[in-house]
């Protein structure tokens, strides 16, 4: 009797944590998606307008605080969005529990490394 109640209780608690966790991820994925819209349009336009003109023009472009800010936001949002999207794909298609956990950690790690690395490069050129 007692253990039965205990079991029911933990199930409800499990569902609660699962639910709030999932909603948080869902929201952050949409927010990063919305942020990506202006960032991608701005970057592809800049790419066509100046960034294909050569080394000096690109460096000059990156030394503007507005462009440097935009690029840092782009890299940050891009790797957050990519990691959260790939997480959903892994959760849907990788059914082996161990492999799933390892790939989830790996994806986050790679996203953090690439994000930090690219942002540092932008800062180095800007400064």
């Amino acid at each position, binding site marked *: 009797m007692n253990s039965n109640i205990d079991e029911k209780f*933990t*199930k409800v608690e*499990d*569902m609660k*944590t*699962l639910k709030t966790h999932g909603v948080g991820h869902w929201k952050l994925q*949409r927010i990063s*998606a*919305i942020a*990506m*819209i202006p960032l*991608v349009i701005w970057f*592809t336009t800049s790419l*066509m307008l100046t960034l*294909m003109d*050569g*080394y000096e023009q*690109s*460096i000059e472009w*990156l030394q503007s605080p507005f462009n440097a800010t935009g*690029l840092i936001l782009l*890299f940050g949002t*891009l*790797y957050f969005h*990519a990691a959260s*999207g*790939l997480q959903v*794909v892994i959760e*849907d*298609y990788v*059914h082996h*529990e161990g492999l799933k956990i390892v790939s989830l950690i790996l994806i986050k790690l790679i996203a953090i490394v*690439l994000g930090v*690395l*690219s942002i540092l*490069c*932008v800062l*180095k*050129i800007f400064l």
Partner: protein
Amino acid sequence: MGKIMSRQRPLSPHLQIYKPQLTSILSILHRGTGIVLSMGSIILVVWIISLTLGKETYLLFSKVVNHWFSHVVLLGFTFGLFYHLSNGIRHLFWDAGYGYDLKHAYISGGAVVFCSLLLTILTWSIIYLSVI
């Protein structure tokens, strides 16, 4: 947590049991382009690293990128980017509760394909015209 994981629950999307339709193909393509673009984003990191390392490295990067084969790959990435962008906006409308009925799902799906093709052609026309 462990109790929930170990229970047998229905597994999500079984791609092989659905008959292909425009809507399902576009849905799969959204994930596909998402995965490909995530990997393609490494080109952006290589680009910014090459700029950081100086002119010589940048020119080497530029030389590789301007090879005809790279252009073909980048053309694919451009379409993937515009597709994921347009279809992503379509998804955001769905999340907000609009356009769920079958008729509008097909209309917006057609619009997404049209827009991504148009934007890809437009972008590469500008790139090639500005070079000449």
